[in-house]
C-alpha cells in the first residue's frame, strides 16, 4: 500500500513539525513517528528532508483549501461565497497553531513553499469563482477570466494580511466584498443601483 505509507509519513512528519518546528524535524524523527525505516522514508521522498518538508507544507496547505472549499459549498451567491470564504480563511489562519508558531520562529523555511503553493491556489480560487461571476452577470466590458484572477488575488491578499480591516466583523467583510471588491466587477450587486459617474 504505497499510498498509505506515503500518507502516513506525511502525517507523522506534520506531527513532528507541530511539536518541534520545521527546522528541528529530521528524517529520523519522521520515520520513528510513522513507524517505518529511514530507507522507507527515502524511498517515498528521494529528495530527503527538503522534499519531505516541502510536501508536508503543500499537503497541509491543500487540506486548508479543501476545508475552505467545503465551507463555501453551500453559499449560493457570489457575495456569499466571497464573504464566507474570506471570514473562514482568516479565522483558520489566525487559529492555526502550527502555522502561527512556524511563522514566528522560522518563516524563512515556510514561506518559499507557501508562496509557490499560493500561485496554484490562486488559480483554483479563480476557477471556482468564475461560474459564480457568470451567473451573477458581469459589468459591461469586464472580462470574466481577468475579473476572477483579480478577485482571487484580492482574496489571498486579505486572508493573509487583513491590514485595516477587521475580518472577524461580518459587517466589515460584507462592506469589503460588496462595496470594494465587487463594485466594478459585476452588475449592480444589491442593494446598490447604477454606479455614479
Amino acid at each position, binding site marked *: 500500500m504505497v499510498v498509505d505509507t506515503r500518507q502516513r509519513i506525511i502525517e507523522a512528519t506534520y506531527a513532528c513539525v507541530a511539536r518541534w518546528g520545521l527546522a528541528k524535524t529530521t528524517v529520523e524523527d519522521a520515520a520513528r513517528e510513522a513507524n517505518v525505516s529511514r530507507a522507507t522514508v527515502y524511498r517515498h521522498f528521494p529528495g530527503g528532508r527538503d522534499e519531505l518538508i516541502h510536501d508536508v507544507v503543500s499537503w497541509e496547505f491543500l487540506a486548508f483549501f479543501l476545508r475552505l472549499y467545503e465551507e463555501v459549498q453551500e453559499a449560493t451567491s457570489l457575495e456569499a461565497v466571497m464573504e464566507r470564504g474570506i471570514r473562514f480563511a482568516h479565522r483558520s489562519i489566525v487559529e492555526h497553531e502550527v502555522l502561527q508558531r512556524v511563522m514566528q520562529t522560522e518563516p524563512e523555511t515556510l514561506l518559499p513553499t507557501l508562496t509557490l503553493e499560493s500561485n496554484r491556489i490562486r488559480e483554483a480560487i479563480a476557477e471556482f469563482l468564475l461560474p459564480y461571476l457568470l451567473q451573477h452577470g458581469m459589468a459591461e466590458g469586464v472580462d470574466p477570466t481577468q475579473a476572477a484572477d483579480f478577485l482571487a488575488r484580492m482574496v489571498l491578499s486579505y486572508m493573509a*494580511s487583513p491590514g485595516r480591516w477587521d475580518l472577524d466583523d461580518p459587517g466589515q467583510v460584507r462592506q469589503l466584498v460588496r462595496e470594494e471588491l465587487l463594485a466594478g466587477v459585476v452588475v449592480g450587486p444589491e442593494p446598490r443601483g447604477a454606479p455614479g459617474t
Partner: protein
Amino acid sequence: MSEHAARLLAVPPVVPASRTAAAAGGSHRVRIVDGALECLARQGTSKTTVDDIARRAGVSRATVYRVFPGGKVEVIAAVVDTEMARLFSALGASMGAADTLSDVLVNGITEAYTRITTHPALTYLVEHEPEVVLGHLAFDESNRLLATATRFVGPFLARWMDPEESARVAEWSARIVLSYCISPSARTDLADRRQARTLVETFVLPGIRALRAPDASDPIDLNRYAADHRAGGPTA
C-alpha cells in the same frame, strides 16, 4: 541578515550601476553604500562579505568598519533605507504630478510595480534567496508594509476623498502592487500604463465610487481636474 535585506523588497533602482560607487567619487560612506548595493545585485546577501563591499567601493576593509562599525548588517541597513527612500521619492514625484484620481493611481501603481520588479538587487534576492524577501510579504510583516505604504500614499488622494477613504484606497492599491509583484500575471502587465489604467478603471474606481454611492450628497468626482491649482498638464 534577512531583517534588513528583506526590506529591500520595497526598493527601486534609480541610479544605474555605472554611475555609482567609486566612479561617483563620493565620500567613503556613499561609496560603501553604493558598492554594497552592487554586491547585492550580483550575489545576494549571504554571499556578500565585507571584503566584497570594500573591493567594489574601492576602499579598505578597515574603512568599511570605521564608517560602519556594525559591519555588513549595518551597511545593508543603510542600503535598504536608501533604496526605500528612492522608491518613495519616485512614487511621490509620479503621483504628485497627476491631476486626476485615475492618473494618481495609475502613476503610483505603475511606478511602484516597475521599480520593484526591475530593481537589480531585489530581483537577485527574489530569484536566489527568496526567503530573505518573502518574510516581509506575509502575515504580520505584510500588514506592516501595507501600513507604511498606506501612510505614504494616502495623502496623495486627499484632493479627492477624506482621510479615512484615502487610507482605504491607498491600502487597496498597495495590495494590488504587492500581489502582482509576488506573482506576475501573464494577462496584466502593470508596468504597461495602458494595462494598469484598465485595471484601475475596471476594478478600483467603481469601488471608490461605491464608497459613497448610492445616496451620497457629495459623490466623489473622479475626474476633477485641478487646472486652477497646477500649471503642469496631466502626465501622459
